């Protein structure tokens, strides 16, 4: 926050100072100097760190790929083919999107055309039918979309965005799709497609669970630090107790209880809470401890600054001071912890999925893929691609996140200023 201040005009009126034209040249010089904000300075330092920049590029690429997965001409991640493609090694022979049922093989575009014909037929019926029947037919159309639409057979419950992107993909690439560059798994599903779709889940879990932990940790830490006194003592003692609980075990315990069939159907599903959401909340709920401590420390050092007094003088309440004045000031360090929490959370997700307690099929995540790869290792035959490719993607992403987080921490370190 090194703003170069220039205000010589106010002094130019004094007679013992040099004449105004000399000030003009000084002013000219001062205009050439630019103040560098903390963020700009940090960004400059970050740019010089090639490992962090390479990681950033990799991460951006990864996120774009995750968002645009339905647009990429991939094979189906869930379609099985036990006869021809079980444990198919990596190869480069081109493929089309097709489905074999009752001995008849049809491509996706053919299936789509058939489906559209049927819907049109139903819609025609609806136009001539009586109002009650029309409602019934409309219900049938909706049901068909939800169950019989060809997309439902190639992809597992595509959401709205995935649906639109798939439409676009069909327009762009038709039935053509990438060869099985990473091979196929025990059920003949294409590994490359599963890696892409798994990445989507893994990244979303990482980001959302981290945001949950951010929300809890920052508000908790800021409140404790700002209020101080016995409230602070009690709140931090609670954090201490939680620190000495082996969380993995408690989380596993929690997840098994929350995914119990009756609890799931009676208490959670009516509110639209599914397993992945439980996951976000539970993981986020354990990673907030460090964040709370860090934010508390920062807030304690900030709360005696003048701008807090100024805010109080003009009548701001505690809530407003915490959330409008203090929290924006601790954002730098919070961002650093954020980038270091995301890989920890992703690792935890893959760890749980690996143990069979996390994401459950037919959803995929990278941890699940590694687990599937390990399960089919036998002394007789090793399907190396099923272990190598998921491990590699997971490891590279964690690597990149760690490098980027470290680089960001160095860049935002005020001690490194102007170096």
């Amino acid at each position, binding site marked *: 926050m090194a703003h170069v201040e220039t205000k010589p005009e106010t002094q130019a009126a004094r007679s013992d100072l040099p004449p105004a034209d000399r000030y003009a040249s000084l002013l000219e010089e001062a205009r050439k100097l630019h103040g560098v904000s903390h963020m700009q300075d940090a960004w400059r330092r970050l740019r010089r760190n090639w490992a962090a920049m390479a990681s950033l590029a990799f991460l951006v690429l990864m996120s774009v790929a995750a968002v645009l997965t339905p647009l990429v001409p991939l094979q189906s991640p869930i379609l099985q083919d036990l006869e021809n493609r079980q444990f198919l090694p990596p190869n480069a022979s081109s493929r089309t999107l097709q489905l074999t049922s009752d001995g008849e093989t049809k491509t996706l575009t053919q299936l789509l055309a058939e489906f559209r014909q049927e819907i049109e037929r139903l819609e025609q019926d609806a136009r001539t039918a009586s109002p009650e029947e029309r409602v019934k037919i409309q219900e049938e159309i909706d049901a068909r979309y939800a169950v019989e639409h060809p997309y439902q057979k190639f992809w597992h419950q595509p959401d709205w965005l995935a649906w639109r992107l798939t439409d676009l993909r069909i327009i762009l690439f038709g039935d053509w799709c990438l060869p099985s560059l990473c091979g196929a798994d025990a059920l003949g599903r294409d590994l490359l497609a599963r890696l892409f779709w798994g990445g989507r889940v893994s990244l979303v879990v990482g980001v959302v669970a981290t945001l949950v932990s951010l929300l809890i940790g920052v508000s908790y830490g800021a409140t404790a630090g700002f209020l101080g006194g016995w409230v602070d003592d009690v709140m931090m003692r609670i954090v201490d107790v939680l620190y*000495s609980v082996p969380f993995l075990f408690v989380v596993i*315990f929690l997840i*098994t*209880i929350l995914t119990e069939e009756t609890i799931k159907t009676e208490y959670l599903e009516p509110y639209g809470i599914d397993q992945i959401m439980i996951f976000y909340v539970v993981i986020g709920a354990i990673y907030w401890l460090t964040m709370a401590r860090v934010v508390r420390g920062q807030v304690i050092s900030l709360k005696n600054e003048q701008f807090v007094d100024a805010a109080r003088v003009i009548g701001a309440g505690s809530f407003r001071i915490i959330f409008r004045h203090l929290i924006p000031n601790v954002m730098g360090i919070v961002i650093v912890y954020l980038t270091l929490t995301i890989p920890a959370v992703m690792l935890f997700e893959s760890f749980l999925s*690996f143990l069979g307690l996390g994401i459950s099929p037919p959803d995929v995540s990278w*941890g699940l893929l590694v687990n599937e790869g*390990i399960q089919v*290792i036998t002394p007789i035959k090793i399907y190396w691609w099923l272990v190598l490719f998921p491990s590699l993607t997971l490891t590279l992403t964690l*690597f990149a996140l760690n490098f980027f987080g470290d680089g960001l921490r160095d860049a935002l370190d005020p001690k490194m200023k102007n170096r």
Partner: protein
Amino acid sequence: MLWYLVKRIIWMAGTLWVVFTLTWFLMRAVPGGPFDAEKKIPEEIRRNIEARYKLDQPLHVQYLDNLAHVIRLDFGPSFKLLDYPVNRVIAEGFPVSASLGVFAMIFALTLGLTAGVASAIGRRTAYDYGFMALATVGVAVPNFVLASLAIVLFVFYLGWFPAAGWGTLRQIALPAICLGAPFAGYIARLTRTGMLEVLGQDYIRTAYAKGLRHRRVIVRHALRGAILPVVSYLGPAVAAILTGSIVIERIFALPGLGIHFIEAATQRDYTLAMGMVLVYTFLLFVMNTLVDLSYGLIDPRVKLK
């Protein structure tokens, strides 16, 4: 010192009680008893079973009864492994997990300290860069990925290690190395940073000036100052080794505590799971206390409060 220990024990009792109470009530919050999932059983038998597990009494009686048992270190019968008390499961699994953890820790400390000291002394040499690259890989690779790649490579392709089994050193080696590798990497990085800082200080120059040999200066003077960050890292490391061993035990099919815990969780064997949670909490607390104590022994400036 004594007061510190007493305080730690009180804290531990409190933490264990909180964990027990939370897990106990969560367990009871699950609708239906643990035997409901089985096919329908006659009313008399159900009543007998409930009497056996004291499920027919009011909630607070059950809670106090369980608490009294747990205080006497009796975790009760397992819900799923018939005629198998939780204590026996723990007694059988604990030695396996403990030796796995100890071997992993020994491996991590030996390799980490050696690599850290070597790269600090040979700063900016091939050793330094090689070790530090290796350490970064060790830190970032998840241990289950490392373990699965190690199985493919060392067990099936090269045949250096047996695939499974437990008992001989050859069987322990690969799981222990896979479990310890990330910690070795982290310890190496900590040691290197600590050594570099210490080596520039006056007392090292003094030690050289009074004619001590290089080896003696490094081992007796420098390492002692550099090891402090490593010691304070041991607390979290022990916790991470406890959790890491779950995965390693599962991949290598070792009959330890971790594998029982996962089974207890997936089979919804609540008494077993709770016993495990309590045992792990206890272990974590003891380890952290030991780390704190050793911190005071190594650095006389640290006073325990």
